[in-house]
């Protein structure tokens, strides 16, 4: 790694990137939720399907939900073919997105190490590396010495409570600047004539029989040919008003950042066992995440003991972090499914589409799921890549059990 000056690659603060239009009385497609997924979906609706009479309704400010709160890890090294297909499609789009949106996303392919701390975890990790390779996803198994070469600040000595026995390594993985991703999409959408409407909460739906024909909002009713949910942790609250039950549970997920430091951490390190993941942001903060808080909650904060455990694990793995000060902690509300995979597709109601259940790991999917969800909305049929993630898999039993590769990590 050549030394870099923290913050040097950050662009200037942007001028106004999108307008704030008044909502029209009707649209071809209304998207509920102005996070990464809502924005990416609107973008690919316009780009791939020529559908631009679209509104994205956001109850707060644009991308102020989980999009603004995540630890920005992007990777595609999931176990099953279905997940590898979707996340690798996303990663390929990430690789060209900066150019496509003509906006600096600070997408940095600095690689991801997923640590293994037990013999069983070593075996599972090697299996995942092999599965990844069969799916054309770049992956390697590294021994502790190779891990130390990539990330010298990591404690790879044998006398830890949970020593590092090796790691999977995906060199093409990395991080991006989440706000910029949202802004890049928003600017492109604004130019294509899509309405981005903030401060507009969807409170209910208009329906005719089994067809959804519009939404009720805090700014009045809006008719819609199609209504697409992209409301992350709040999807249950919306679906409940339609009597539609979804197999998701909303939990707080916390993250924190340190003060700004010189560049010390060259890659992304994740550990499912001791439960911490960390990278260094472009500006210099260490960005750390933990697991979800155990109980359901819509409060955008979690318990302090979760942070305490995460810090304990971090300091054991990275002794030098003991001297770093915590600057900020926060939480998001994430929607967790029983098989740790998302739900993206049609619903039993005509004209209503659902994209939820991304839980702790949906940032990395942003362009990929936007692409597939837009296809689902435009054609009334899932794209082959998101077909396995339909709601009916919980009845057919065709689950995509990604707890091992997703679990609570990202």
């Amino acid at each position: 790694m050549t030394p870099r000056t923290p913050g040097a690659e950050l662009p200037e603060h942007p001028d106004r990137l999108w307008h704030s239009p008044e909502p029209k009385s009707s649209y071809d497609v209304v998207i509920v939720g102005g996070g990464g997924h809502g924005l990416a979906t609107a973008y690919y609706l316009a780009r791939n399907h020529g559908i631009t009479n679209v509104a994205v309704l956001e109850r707060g400010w644009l991308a102020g939900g989980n999009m603004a709160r995540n630890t920005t890890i992007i990777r595609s090294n999931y176990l099953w073919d279905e997940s590898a297909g979707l996340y690798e499609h996303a990663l390929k789009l990430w690789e060209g997105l900066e150019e496509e949106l003509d906006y600096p996303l600070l997408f940095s392919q600095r690689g991801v190490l997923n640590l293994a701390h037990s013999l069983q975890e070593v075996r599972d990790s090697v299996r995942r590396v092999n599965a990844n390779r069969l799916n054309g996803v770049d992956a390697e198994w590294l021994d502790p010495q190779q891990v130390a070469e990539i990330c010298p600040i990591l404690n790879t000595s044998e006398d830890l409570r949970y020593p590092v026995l090796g790691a999977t390594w995906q060199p093409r993985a990395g991080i991006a600047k989440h706000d910029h991703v949202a802004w890049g999409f928003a600017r492109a959408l604004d130019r294509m004539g899509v309405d981005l409407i903030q401060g507009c909460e969807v409170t209910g739906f208009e329906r005719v029989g089994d067809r959804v024909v519009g939404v009720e909002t805090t700014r009045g009713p809006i008719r819609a040919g199609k209504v697409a949910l992209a409301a992350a942790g709040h999807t249950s609250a919306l679906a409940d008003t339609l009597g539609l039950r979804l197999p998701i549970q909303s939990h707080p997920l916390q993250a924190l950042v340190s003060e700004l430091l010189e560049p010390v951490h060259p890659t992304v390190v994740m550990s499912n066992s001791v439960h911490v993941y960390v990278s260094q942001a472009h500006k210099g903060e260490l960005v750390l995440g933990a697991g979800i808080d155990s109980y359901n909650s819509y409060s955008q904060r979690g318990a302090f003991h979760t942070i305490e455990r995460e810090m304990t694990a971090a300091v054991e793995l990275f002794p030098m972090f003991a001297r770093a000060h915590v600057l900020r902690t926060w939480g998001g509300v994430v929607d967790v499914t029983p098989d740790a995979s998302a739900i993206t597709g049609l619903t039993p109601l005509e004209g209503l589409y659902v994209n939820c259940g991304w839980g702790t790991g949906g940032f990395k999917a942003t362009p990929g799921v936007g692409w597939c969800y837009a296809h689902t909305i435009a054609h009334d049929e899932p794209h082959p890549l998101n077909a396995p993630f339909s709601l009916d898999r919980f009845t057919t039993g065709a689950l995509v059990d990604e707890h091992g590769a997703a679990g609570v990590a990202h």
Partner: protein
Amino acid sequence: MMLIPCPWCGPRNEIEFHYGGQADVHCPDDPQSVSDADWATFLFFRDNPKGVFTERWSHASGCRRWFTVRRDTRTNRVLPADSTNHARTVTT
């Protein structure tokens, strides 16, 4: 930190507890006669209200008993038990 009222030990810090999810989830009496859709509901679908939730907690580091709590998921405030939701062990 949440203070969770164990009916046997009194209010204790949440780190002493294990979370058990929605209360009053019953296994179908005759699993053979249950449709795929109903079976899926039993296995995978739970309420997820933004508001009052009736849920199970186990006092894992204390008396180790299970009991039911009502909590507002917007604020995490634990509410008084109502008449239909007395704390009880799983076996009753």
